[in-house]
């Protein structure tokens, strides 16, 4: 039976890998997800045949409760709320790993030092993921403020927590009967999860979710070491790798090192007034009618959506606008910056939900050379990702960040509530450029007005 179980686990591992591979193209992605589901189903089913399992009553209760909650969340969640949902699920995965490792400990099968060490590690990573994810969830959900929370000696304090956990782990390996050590690791990891997540600002959340995603995988893998289960190790390692890659992509897109994101405490809640640097700059207010006149004379339009678009729930009316423009013979595309939205790839999902065909969603590297041949760029609810300061101003927080070359287009339209700065706190010279048309107002209202004029 053990052989059969392990062979099924191997099959399950292969299906997980093939599933992730199929996620590489929008055409096959849904099938890929189904393969991963099948892999999970196989792994769970064969585990239930394990002869060590004596009592199924609790298992069935647990599975039913968990499935019911999972189904409800998956059906009810809004696409704008995906980041906090993923954060919450990461936390649950981490929590489950801690619980399994603790449970193994209390089964007390006189384990070897190597197993004890993995129990400690699993509890540490799992708990860290659990509390860290809950903080990330609270920040994204708006229960906590997005601004960084810092205190004196924070980094030193965190370092002490890590070292303390290692010391407790070593003591635990020497004296496995001492429950205090396990509780100590648990407590230190729980505090570390909180103190290492609170200094991270709202704009850096995509990095944190990716990193916690990686942790949740590592926690599962660590639990696999505890119970010598290969499918946990393999699936956990895959997720750990995936989270690390996404973390790296997000860091590169923001031109920040991971250390800077984790310890830099950069950012605010956003929306602060533009820096009063003395010189008086003027912008001209334009209306929806002006915008339509300009669009009438254009042949190509690139839309740059930012998170402000999603906040205003303007995706659907924006799709209506681009269809109207297309029916007039314009070439309309969307330029998606890697950090648009609140998690990697978030903007693509929001636009897909609004029925924008995915061929129209173009990545930054692909579209950046096309701006110079484009008549109109329409920026909606984005700011830092088009700020030319990133190319020139060396002392700016934005300097070096890859941006969309909106300023190279023949004319630029910016829909925005005010002249306020973005997350990076940097004024945007493009607002004051002669070829820029500022359309002040709520994104949804402004785009709706444009649609009305186009129809009228």
């Amino acid at each position, binding site marked *: 039976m053990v052989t059969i179980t392990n062979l099924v686990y191997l099959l399950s591992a292969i299906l997980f890998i093939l599933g992730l591979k199929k996620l590489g193209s929008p055409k096959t992605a*849904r099938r890929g997800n189904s393969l991963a589901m099948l892999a999970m189903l196989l792994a769970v089913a064969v585990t239930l045949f394990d002869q060590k399992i004596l009592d199924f009553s609790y298992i069935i209760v647990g599975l039913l409760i*968990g499935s019911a909650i999972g189904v409800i969340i998956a059906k009810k969640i809004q696409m704008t709320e995906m980041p906090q*949902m*993923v954060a919450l699920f990461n936390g649950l995965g981490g929590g489950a790993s801690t619980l399994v490792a603790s*449970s193994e400990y209390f089964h007390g099968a006189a384990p070897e030092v190597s197993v004890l060490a993995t129990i400690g590690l699993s509890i540490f990573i799992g708990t860290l993921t659990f509390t860290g994810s809950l903080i990330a969830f609270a920040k994204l959900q708006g229960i906590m403020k997005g601004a960084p929370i810092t205190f004196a000696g924070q980094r030193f304090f965190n370092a002490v927590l890590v070292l303390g956990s290692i010391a407790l782990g070593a003591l635990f390996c020497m004296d496995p009967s001492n429950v205090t050590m396990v509780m100590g690791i648990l407590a230190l990891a729980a505090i570390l999860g909180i103190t290492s997540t609170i200094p991270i600002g709202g704009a850096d959340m995509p990095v944190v979710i990716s990193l916690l995603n990686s942790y949740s*995988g590592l926690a599962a893998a660590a639990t696999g070491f505890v*119970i010598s289960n290969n499918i946990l190790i393999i699936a956990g390692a895959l997720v750990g790798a995936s989270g690390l890659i996404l973390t790296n992509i997000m860091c590169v897109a923001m031109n920040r090192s991971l250390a800077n994101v984790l310890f830099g405490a950069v950012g605010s809640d956003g929306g602060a007034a533009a820096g009063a640097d003395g010189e008086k700059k003027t912008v001209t207010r334009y209306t929806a009618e002006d915008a339509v006149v300009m669009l009438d004379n254009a042949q190509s339009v690139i839309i740059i959506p930012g998170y402000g678009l999603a906040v205003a729930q303007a995706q659907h009316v924006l799709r209506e606008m681009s269809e109207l423009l297309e029916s007039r013979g314009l070439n309309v595309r969307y330029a998606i910056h890697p950090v648009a939205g609140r998690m990697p790839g978030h903007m693509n999902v929001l636009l897909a939900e609004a029925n924008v065909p995915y061929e129209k969603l173009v990545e930054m590297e692909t579209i950046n050379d096309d701006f110079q041949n484009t008549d109109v760029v329409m920026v909606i609810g984005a700011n830092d990702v088009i700020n030319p300061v990133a190319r020139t101003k060396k002392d700016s927080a934005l300097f070096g960040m890859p941006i969309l070359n909106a300023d190279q287009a023949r004319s630029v339209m910016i829909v925005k509530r005010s002249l306020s700065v973005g997350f990076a706190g940097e004024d945007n010279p493009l607002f004051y450029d002669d070829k820029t048309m500022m359309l002040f107002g709520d994104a949804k209202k402004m785009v709706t007005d444009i649609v009305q004029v186009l129809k009228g």
Partner: protein
Amino acid sequence: MMGIVLVSIYIFVLTVFIGFEVITKVPPLLHTPLMSGSNAISGITLVGALLSTGVGNNQLAVILGVVAVVFATINVVGGFLVTDRMLEMFKNKDSK
């Protein structure tokens, strides 16, 4: 016993490499579904939770196990379903 842990480390490291190879090829377009899908995969801890719960020779261990089953099942079921819901929305021009 060290032998088993060593084999586990081999499997872990080699799988990380496979993970890097496979996942680097996923385009930014699909990064959110990738994340929620891989998130569901990390709910594989469910397998461990089932064993912890079912073996049942220690009351506390069983309680911890049941809570783990609930957590991991939410993670698995919710994660896969929401990923499917998202991927269903990704359509190209022809399928509109």
